[in-house]
């Protein structure tokens, strides 16, 4: 009786073959963005090398995420296809749990990009902290507060060192009843960073047109101390040759907008505002994302985005930092009322 163990949730491609629960052979190497090409071929190699017939495969264990979106889909699609064809059980295990170190309590971490990490804490089959996404400063605090836990993973991006991980040994002991997938045909990965299904509102971002002006002015006037007049806003929309305004729409109502300029290799955010009722629901994130996409679609490459934000507006500064903007300098008395501006920049290529 054989079992197949698969993981491609991160930069590695790992395939293991176990016979009666003993790991008898394994293939594991760095294959970032190559898993799609090589994973099936590696499984084939292992099966042929040990002369395993398909009827001798008893079950498949695969890591289900969180991790690289494409990576987790590759191993899971292969696993689903095998268990569908052979009508055998499928076991799904957290791709963080397979990073635990022996039976030591382990903080398992992978880079979720945008200054965030996927984190889960495990001791054997016991879950101490369930898988979640965490801002990196918070991760560092958590690590400091738990000196009794070991770290695992490639943690150079956090300035930390993790212990080496034996993913395949961990997968080999993950065929527990808790991990048995009840409906393997419909099995889906765990993405966590799930802005699509998590947010209950459906946000569409599109270019502003003049019919949106009343809604945009209402949001503008509610959001800013010294709002633009409608005349200024109309200039931005209709005449400013380097101006771009995108609006976020929920149920055909405009709930936010971003106004930015693209000049040669850089872009500048003039304003971004979200209707108070729709804050903290991903609208701003969608607007920033759409702006970055617009910048990437320019014929002349846009390399970085700049902005000024009021010194007192710490909420906005936190929002920008979350979106990979960094503080460069303070511009004294930048605003008409004498307040300083924080000058922030991010490069377009970030994740």
């Amino acid at each position, binding site marked *: 009786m054989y079992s197949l163990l698969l993981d491609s949730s991160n930069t590695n491609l790992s395939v293991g073959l176990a016979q009666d629960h003993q790991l008898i052979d394994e293939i594991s190497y760095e294959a970032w963005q190559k898993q799609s090409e*090589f994973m099936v071929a590696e499984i084939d190699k292992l099966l042929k090398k040990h002369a395993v017939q398909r009827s001798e495969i008893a079950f498949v264990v695969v890591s289900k995420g969180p991790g690289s979106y*494409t990576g987790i889909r*590759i191993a899971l699609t292969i696993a*689903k*296809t095998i268990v569908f*064809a052979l009508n055998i059980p499928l076991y799904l295990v957290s791709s963080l749990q397979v990073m635990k170190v022996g039976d030591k309590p382990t903080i398992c971490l992978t880079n979720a990009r945008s200054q965030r990490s996927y984190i889960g804490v495990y001791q054997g089959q016991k879950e101490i902290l369930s898988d979640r996404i965490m801002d990196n400063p918070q991760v560092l605090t958590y690590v400091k507060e738990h000196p009794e836990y070991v770290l695992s993973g490639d943690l150079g991006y956090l300035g930390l060192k993790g212990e080496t991980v034996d993913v395949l040994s961990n997968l080999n002991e993950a065929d527990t009843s808790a991990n048995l997938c009840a409906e393997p045909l*419909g099995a889906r990965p765990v993405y966590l960073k799930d802005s*699509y299904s998590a947010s209950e509102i459906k946000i569409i971002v599109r270019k502003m047109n003049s019919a949106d002006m009343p809604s945009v002015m209402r949001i503008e006037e509610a959001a800013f101390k010294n709002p633009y007049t409608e005349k200024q806003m109309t200039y931005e929309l209709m005449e400013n040759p380097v101006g771009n305004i995108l609006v976020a729409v929920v149920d055909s109502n405009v709930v936010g907008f971003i106004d930015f300029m693209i000049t040669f290799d850089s872009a500048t955010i003039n304003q971004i505002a979200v209707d108070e009722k729709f804050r903290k629901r991903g609208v701003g994130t969608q607007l920033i994302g759409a702006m970055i996409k617009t910048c990437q679609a320019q014929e002349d490459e846009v390399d970085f985005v700049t902005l000024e934000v009021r010194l007192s507006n710490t909420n906005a500064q936190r929002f920008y930092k979350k979106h990979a903007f960094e503080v460069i300098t303070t511009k004294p008395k930048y605003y008409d009322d004498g307040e300083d501006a924080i000058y922030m920049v991010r490069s377009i290529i970030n994740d």
Partner: protein
Amino acid sequence: MTRILAIESSCDETSVAITDNGKLLANVVATQIAVHEKYGGVMPEIASRLHTENITVCLTEALRQAKLKPEEIDAFAVTRGPGLIGCLHVGLQAAKTLAMLYDKPLIPVHHLAGHIYANEYVGTLKFPLLCVVVSGGNTELVIMKGDLDFEIIGETKDDAVGECYDKVARVLGLPYPGGLPIDQHAKLGKHTYDLPEPNAGEGKYDFSYSGLKTSVINLVNSLKMKGEPVRLDDMARSFQDVAIGMILEKATRAAEDYHVKQMVLAGGVSANSYLREQMKARLEGTGIDLIIPPLWCTTDNAAMIAKVAEHLYERKVFAPLTLGVDPNWRISDWAKFD
């Protein structure tokens, strides 16, 4: 007896088809249109997720309909490109896994070749032929001098015609996908708005749709600024006349220049009623045969992939298990997949 199982996942339809010596036994399509409607276009990450969820469900259903077991299949075919990369990966893994488990050939298929060969379900291809490939991702004129012999003689320099329909529909407040609603409104309207025909540059048979899209957007905005109503039916008609007119013009010119025996429409936009009627009218009396695909063949499905795979099976065009996807695969490179 050759039984082929084909998988298509290049965009927003997950599909599995099975043929037995050319006879279609099953063609299961899990469409995602209702999901992408909310966004006014296909969201690649969401599409990839849905393919992953749906793929084995579609496989199970196709085999059930065909009353076959996977070990009774002789070859596994898959769309290798062009398409959305994350989506292509999913179908590829499933096809490779099956080919590996049952030690059967893996056949890599070009998506557009599928749209062209879909016409073999309703007619016989006669060479030389001109294929007009018009869809959400493609606008191409392809000359075929024989089976699997493709030469692209014209293509879009920017947006695809179907993409242009979707974007114009969005500006006009019509649902996604935009093809059908614009077609319906156009039937009720008159060509009253002046939209310049875009210039596609030097290529005699090339297309350009980005300028047309911008013209509609600017016109709608300036009407709104002036407080004038947009006459939806007339705008749809004016747009459709120009968008389809460009295809009619270039396709008939190419058909004459290349002395083709047959013209074949393929791709999602070939469902457009105005394109179908006008092309029929223009080719009448020219001696050029026109094949119009059945509506079920105008959207993405695996039956058309299986049709190409039959030809590839005969020629033993098989791929190794290290096959990768190619989101920009050229149709003339259909035999190159290393």
